[in-house]
C-alpha cells in the first residue's frame, strides 16, 4: 500500500493527466447520445448574450441575402394561401391549429463541425421547450435540446444524433434522414426499402410520425440514388432544402397536443417524467 502511494506521488503528473483525460472523455462520450445531450447541454442567458451582441454587428452584412430569403418565403406562402382558403371550413382548418409557430432569430450557428448547433433568441419565456421542432423558411432545420429564459439551443440537422422520420412524397413510404457527410448542403436518406427507385428531384418531407414536426414539411430533394446489389435497406443522397449556411430566421413549432399524444403512445413513460 505504501509503495502504491509512493508510486502515485512519484508519477503525480502522469496520474493527474490520466484522471483529467478520463473525465474529459467521459463527458465527451456522454454528450454523444441524443437523450443525454438533452440533459447535459447547459444553456445560459450569458452565452446567448455574448452571441447576440456578436450577431448584432455581423447581421448587417447579411441583410441583403436575408431579405431575398424572406421575399422567397412570402411568395411561396402567398401561393399556398389560394389552396388553403377553400378548405377553411373543413377539417384541414382545425388540423392547422394543432401547431403554433413562434418566429425567432438565429444568434449563433455552425455548419462545419461534426455536431452542429444553432442558438436562437427565444426561450422559456416565449413558451419554448425541449424537443420542439424548428424549421426555416424553406424546410426542417433542427430540434430544440436546451432552453434558458431568453435563448434556446437547437440540435441542427447537421448533427450525428439528428435522425428525422421522413416520407418519400410521391409514394408515402417511410424513410429516415441522417447527416453523414462533411458537406452541409447534403444529407442521407436511409432505410429505403430495396424495391423503391428514387430519381433525382424526388421530394423528401417530414413524416408527421414523430410528434415534433407536422406532416409534409419539406426536408430536401434527392440528388442520387445508387441501387445496391444486396437486398437490404438502401441509402440515397439528398440536398437539404434549408440552407444551413445562411440561416437567419427560424420558426419553432409547438405541438399543442403533444402531451396527449405521448400519453396515448407510452402512458408509463410520460407519467414517470
Amino acid at each position, binding site marked *: 500500500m505504501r509503495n502504491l502511494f509512493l508510486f502515485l506521488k512519484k508519477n503525480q503528473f502522469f496520474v493527474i493527466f490520466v484522471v483529467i483525460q478520463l*473525465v474529459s472523455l467521459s463527458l*465527451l462520450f456522454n454528450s454523444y447520445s441524443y437523450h443525454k445531450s438533452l440533459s447535459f447541454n447547459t444553456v445560459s442567458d450569458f452565452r446567448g448574450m455574448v452571441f447576440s451582441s456578436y450577431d448584432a454587428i455581423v447581421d448587417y452584412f447579411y441583410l441583403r441575402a436575408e431579405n431575398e430569403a424572406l421575399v422567397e418565403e412570402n411568395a411561396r406562402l402567398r401561393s399556398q394561401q389560394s389552396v388553403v382558403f377553400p378548405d377553411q371550413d373543413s377539417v384541414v382548418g382545425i388540423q392547422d391549429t394543432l401547431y403554433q409557430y413562434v418566429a425567432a432569430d438565429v444568434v449563433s450557428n455552425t455548419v*462545419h463541425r461534426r455536431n452542429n448547433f444553432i442558438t436562437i433568441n427565444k426561450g422559456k419565456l416565449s413558451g419554448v421547450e425541449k424537443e420542439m421542432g424548428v424549421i426555416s423558411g424553406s424546410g426542417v432545420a433542427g430540434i430544440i435540446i436546451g432552453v434558458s429564459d431568453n435563448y434556446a439551443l437547437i440540435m441542427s440537422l447537421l448533427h450525428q444524433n439528428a435522425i428525422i422520420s421522413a416520407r418519400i412524397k410521391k409514394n408515402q413510404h417511410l424513410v429516415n434522414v441522417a447527416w453523414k457527410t462533411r458537406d452541409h448542403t447534403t444529407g442521407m436518406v436511409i432505410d429505403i426499402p430495396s424495391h423503391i427507385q428514387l430519381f433525382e428531384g424526388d421530394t423528401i418531407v417530414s413524416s408527421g410520425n414523430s410528434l415534433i414536426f407536422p406532416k409534409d414539411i419539406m426536408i430536401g430533394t434527392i440528388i442520387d440514388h445508387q441501387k445496391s446489389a444486396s437486398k437490404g435497406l438502401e441509402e440515397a443522397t439528398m440536398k437539404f432544402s434549408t440552407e444551413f449556411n445562411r440561416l437567419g430566421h427560424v420558426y419553432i413549432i409547438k405541438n399543442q397536443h403533444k402531451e396527449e399524444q405521448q400519453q396515448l403512445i407510452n402512458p408509463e413513460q410520460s407519467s414517470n417524467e
Partner: protein
Amino acid sequence: MSNTIKHSIYFLLIMALQVLALNHMNLGGYLNPYVYVLFLLVLPVHINKSLLLLLGFATGLCMDYFGNTLGLHASASVLLAFMRPSVIQLFFKNLDFSERESPMISRVGFMGFLKYTFILVFLHHLLLFYLEVLSFTDGLQTLLAVLLSSLLSTAVIMILVLIFGSRKT
C-alpha cells in the same frame, strides 16, 4: 504587475478573440484556427505541473461551453498541457529560465518559438479533430484538416506574438 493578473488578462483577451471572431471563421470547412492554446503556451516555464494540467482542463472546458462540445476541447487541451514540459525540455534544454519567465520569442528566438508552437498545436489539433469526427470514415481527409488547421493556428499565433510579444516580459 503580478504574474497571475497578467496571465488572467491574457486568458480573457485570447478567449474573447477565439470565441467572438475565430470561432466564426470557416474557410472551406477545413480551416478552423484554434489559437486559444496560446494562453497555455505562454504560461511560465516553471509553473507547477499539476496546475498546468488543471489550467489546460479549465481552458478547454471554457471553449466547450461556447461551442457545445462538452469534453472535446478539454481533452485536447489537457494533452497539450501534458506534453508541454517535455517539448520545452526537448527544445530549450540549454536555456535557463527564471522563476516567472515564459517561453517568448525574445528569449527562445523566432525559430525556437515556431517549433515549440507548431509541435504542440499539431498534437492538440490531432486529438481534437479525430475525437470530433470519431464516426466519420474519412481518416485521410481529417488528417489534411488537422495539418492545414495546425499551420493556420500556428501562423495566427506567430502573428499575435510578433505584434504583442514585444510588450510582454
